[in-house]
């Protein structure tokens, strides 16, 4: 989403770029849906409205809405929206979003191998740090407590399965 550092983009330019890209993504989604519709089987027996009808309507609808939105951010710009998004763009920290998303993926993939309690104990301070927390020791403490308390109360009291991971046999 970020443009080259060589040409420092103003929030307004970034906002407009983001909005146009959003419109293109919506159009693309419409296209993907329509190609997927072709793969839907037709079903059996007496059928008046088949299983493809609604997906087709939704696919075409999304495609058209995407095109309309594209026009609203290019040919006939919606100034309210653009200024609103520009204001947000100025305040948005894309690195935070990227790092948070990344740590979420890592968190989800560590749940099983490390176990719920450990993965959570690790994830919590990392994300707090990404969000700007400065007190690492406190965050680690809270994270581990949170992980352990949730793990034990869910598996022991509530009867919900959570992976024990490395701590299997200890917990």
């Amino acid at each position, binding site marked *: 989403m970020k443009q080259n550092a060589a040409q420092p983009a103003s929030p307004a330019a970034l906002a407009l770029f983001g909005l146009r890209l959003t419109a293109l993504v919506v159009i693309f989604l419409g296209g993907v849906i329509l190609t997927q519709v072709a793969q839907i*089987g037709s*079903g*059996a*027996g*007496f059928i008046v409205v088949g299983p493809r009808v609604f997906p087709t309507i939704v696919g075409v609808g999304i495609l058209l809405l995407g095109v309309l939105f594209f026009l609203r951010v290019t040919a006939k710009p919606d100034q309210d929206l653009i200024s609103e998004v520009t204001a947000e763009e100025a305040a948005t920290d894309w690195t935070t979003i990227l790092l948070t998303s990344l740590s979420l993926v890592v968190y989800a993939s560590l749940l099983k191998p490390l176990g719920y309690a450990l993965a959570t104990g690790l994830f919590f301070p990392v994300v707090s740090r990404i969000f700007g927390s400065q007190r690492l020791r406190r965050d680690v403490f809270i994270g581990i407590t949170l992980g352990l308390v949730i793990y034990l109360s869910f598996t022991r009291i509530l009867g919900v*399965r959570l992976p024990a991971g490395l701590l299997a*046999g*200890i917990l």
Partner: protein
Amino acid sequence: MNRKLNVFVSLALALAFVLAACAPASAPAEATYTYPTEGINIMAPAGAGGGWDGTARAMQPILASLSGQNVQVYNVAGAGGTVGLAQFVGEADGNPHELIVGGLVMIGAIQTNKSPVNLSQVTPIARLTAEAEAIVVPADSKYQTLQELMADFKADPTAISWGGGSAGGTDHILVGLIAKEVGVDPAKINYIAHSGGGEATAAILSGAVTAGVSGLSEFTDQVEAGTMRILAVSSEERLPGVEAPTIKEAGVNVALINWRAVFAPANLTPEQRDAVVALVQKMHDSPEWKAALEANGWADFFLAGDEFSTFMNEEVTRIEGVLRDIGLIQ
């Protein structure tokens, strides 16, 4: 300082001891195969509250008390059991301590969902319970017997709408079998699928569909309340307490029973398989299982080991044939 270290060392030793005690005891060179040697996990490949879940949870305490091991039930819902089955085949291979509940519905779901795994990739242990299907109409319907309904069905098939459970499920299969038997073109079956028997019941009561098809237990409340009438049941013989003929008695040579069973993973040694069968047999013979059957209104339909395997293969062939006939499998 020194004392602290001592405490630490003794704690570590204690921990090591506990860990060692927890590790599965290796049992080399034993003459007879003992089973189970660890906790048993039963997968119910459906959400909580359904028939498979109920079966698994009825087995749980009995197996636990018989084996002296911890028995756990877990649910992996999805797509007529095929999501759970795929996970089971992938993860439990060769482990006799993993079991899965399943049944007739799975056969159809495997085919219609183009499931990558099927029932040949698990070891059949035993068939446990069964439930007959019922064909019902709302109380104010003009149809008094199945024969009358069949006459109209043959005359103008699409005018008769059948309300029942999921597409390709037991209810749908029964309608397909009936259509085939009375010579109605499968492309003219006006089957209105619902997400479950409860939703179908509401549709039947509102008078939207001509007739309803689902498991007998879905309709018993309504029949007792006098808002529905059973035209026929799908069992081979009349059922106690149900004032309705079988479909066969009503002149259509069709019978279908929705059975539920338990399976183990593939690649078990013969000893392992026999041990699991023996444990389930013991469970079936216990008074607790009889009580569970009664509490849930399930009919005993027990068949174990090789005989069950044969039965299952026949069912797979028959059901796949029907599904192909009604066009659900191309």
